[in-house]
Each structure stands twice: as structure tokens, then as C-alpha cells.
């Protein structure tokens, strides 16, 4: 049986997490290759539609990384993102998609290892959950 490699879409805020991930190349620590990174100006830029479309297009999991509380460059974009994620988890549950497939972490400009650990943990979580059931219906 082929091992399941989850496809994870990760939205990274350019003021924090993205900057951290960016140095991955130089620092010889790599983040998992199944994580597709999308740079956003703020975690608050991620709209419910983006998240739903990600699942609709077959993503197995969606991650959002934002700044620490009080640390958002746009004041409260990260807080809005937290609330959006909360609403969307409920929507996912109603649709029978496990709400654990969506997660948000406030990381700020943490060190790279911490970021990579979050990504690895999440990947493992998704691996256990299995592929996005919607993906099988393509075509």
C-alpha cells in the first residue's frame, strides 16, 4: 500500500512565520515537502472562501500561521483569523469533514525549529486522519 503523503496548504503571514520559513534554505533545516506555502500579508487576509476552496480542490489539511496576540502588524488581523477558523471548523464538522483538518497557530517570529515542529505534528495528524474524502470524487 502506497504511503499516504498529505497535501497541506499553509498560509504564512509575511511579518512572522513566512520570514522564518524563508531562512530555511540557508539554515539547513527543512520543512516537510508536502507543505505548500502561501505567503499572505496577514493571517487576517485568509478568507473563508480560500479555506473552503483549498478543501474543495483536494487539500488534506489547511494550516494558518499568524503573529502572536498583540503582535499583529495590522493590529487585530490575527484575532479575526482566529474567529474565522473557529467558524469554519463548525462548517467543516457539519459537512462531515473532520474539523481537525484545519488549524491555526500563533507563532510570531519564533525560531525555525518550532515552526517546523508544528508543521510535522500537523502532517502526522493529517496522515492519521487519512486523505481528504472529497479528493476521491475528482472527475
Amino acid at each position, binding site marked *: 500500500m502506497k504511503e499516504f503523503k498529505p497535501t497541506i496548504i499553509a498560509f504564512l503571514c509575511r511579518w512572522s512565520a513566512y520570514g522564518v520559513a524563508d531562512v530555511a534554505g540557508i539554515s539547513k533545516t527543512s520543512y516537510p515537502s508536502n507543505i505548500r506555502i502561501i505567503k499572505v500579508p496577514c493571517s487576517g487576509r485568509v478568507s473563508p*472562501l480560500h479555506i473552503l476552496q483549498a478543501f*474543495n480542490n483536494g487539500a488534506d489539511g489547511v494550516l494558518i500561521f499568524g503573529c502572536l496576540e498583540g503582535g499583529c502588524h495590522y493590529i487585530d488581523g490575527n484575532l479575526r483569523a482566529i*474567529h*474565522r477558523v*473557529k*467558524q469554519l471548523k463548525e462548517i467543516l464538522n457539519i459537512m462531515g*469533514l473532520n474539523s481537525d483538518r484545519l488549524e491555526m497557530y500563533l507563532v510570531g517570529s519564533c525560531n525555525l525549529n518550532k515552526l517546523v515542529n508544528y508543521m510535522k505534528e500537523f502532517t502526522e495528524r493529517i496522515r492519521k486522519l487519512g486523505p481528504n*474524502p472529497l479528493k*476521491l470524487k475528482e472527475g
Partner: protein
Amino acid sequence: MKKIAIISLMSDGGCHIAFLDIHEELLQLLNQVDLVHSYMTVDRKDIPYNIDIALIEGGVRTTHDIELLKEARSKAKILVAMGSCACFGGIPGLSNLYDLTSSLNYVYRETPTTIKGVIPHENVPNVIRVAPISRYVKVDFQIPGCPPESKEIKDALVSLLKGEIPPQPTKTVCDECKLGPPKKKPKRLRRIYEPPEPNTCLLEQGYFCMGSVTRAGCGAKCPHAGIPCDGCRGPAPKALDQGASILNALITLAYENIKEFSLKRHSAYFYRYSFASSIIEDLIRKRLVEKK
């Protein structure tokens, strides 16, 4: 004379009435075109061939609707989705949030007045998920609204008869509304049983007003009457998914206040007319098909 047909599927007839609401102009129109099918006004029962413009009123709810729709598509040069049910599934789309079998059971067997209950199955078509007509046929043009403005229907017909594409509104109801735009964040959410302050944006006051994500063209009649827009004209040109867009905007404005989110409850605000064409409907349908 060019042939026009109005074919009705799952609908309340309101778009037919909106068409008749062109009043005196109806008589002129009937002299200029051949109205070959319209269940409310013309006796012809079958759908004739060589229709120039077919206006489809209503969405798809039964297998019979799909047959009628495909027949209309094959016999018409131009096919227009008229009204929010045809364009997006309309209010009946909300039914897709409930299990179909339980719904049929409740309505035909379990209401307080039902004595002998049975789910209809003889000489009646199969009931399926509500869908906009675009799920089953190619649609050449849309006139959304619940119902669309009478003038819009007439103007669209006149343009299409000339072989032109009718102009589409590019703005939102919010742009047409005298009360807006919102100047500050709402302090708390409000339901419409509370009267609003006059001359102040309803979204700003905390009502679930869909004006900012709804297509313009009605003059913002409802906000001007003191009631928040409920999105009956469907998504604005730039809002791909009406519900997701307003959810986005509301979180921006009032995230502390939507404490508990329930799709069944909040769909009454966010997806009242467009649930059947939303991305959530798409996701649910994929699951349903996958379950088999």
C-alpha cells in the same frame, strides 16, 4: 416574429408575475413577439421547437424538472435563467441542509395535522437536491432576483431580441443604499424585531445586512424600508460566494459577537438565496456522492 417561451420548474410563480408586472407594456410586447409557452397565460402544453429565447423560471428539484430543462435547452437558441431560484437555487436551496428523507418524512407523515401519512411515490417524479439550472444545462444569460425587477426582465428581453447582451449591474446594493456605508463597527448584533435608528447604516447597527455582497439593481428598497437586505439578488459580480463573502466581512466588523455559529441558523442570513450554488453545497454534494 421571434418566439419567446417562459418555462417554469421549481418556482413560486413570482418571476412570472414580475414579468406580468410590466403592466401596459405587456400588450405592446405581445404584439412584437410570439409568446409560445407560459403556463400561467398561454394554453399550449408542450414546449415547441425553434424558440428564440427561453426564460427558465425556477430551479431544479425533481427529475421531471431536469427533463423539462433539457428539453427547453435543446429547443431554444438562447436560454436565460430568470430569478434567483434558476440562477442559484433560491430559498428552497436551504432545504439542502436537511436530510431529504427526514424532510419528506416530516412533511408527509409527522406534522400535527397529518393522520394518514405516506411519502408520495406513485405517478410523481423523484425529489432530488435543489440545484440551479446551470448544474444541468448551459445557461446563456442570468437575470437574478427574487423576483428580478420587472424592468430588468423587459430590458433583458429587448436586448436579447436585438441580438445584444444586456448590460449587467457592476455594483452592490450597498452602493445604492442611502444609509451606508458603515462608518464604525457594530457594538452588538441585532435581529430585525428590534427597530433600527433612522438614517444610519443597518450593518453598522449590527443587523445582518447582505447589501455589501449583493448585486445592485433594486435601488436598495428593503434597507430604505427599514429592513436589512437579505441578498435576494444573489452575489455581487466580485463576490464569488455570497455566504463566504459576508462571513468574511462580518468577521472583520464584529468578530467578538458571533459567538455560536450554526449553519442551519445562519444560512438564513448568509445563504438565503444562494445555498444551492455555494461552495459548501459543492462540498456536501461531493461527500454525498462519495458515500455511495
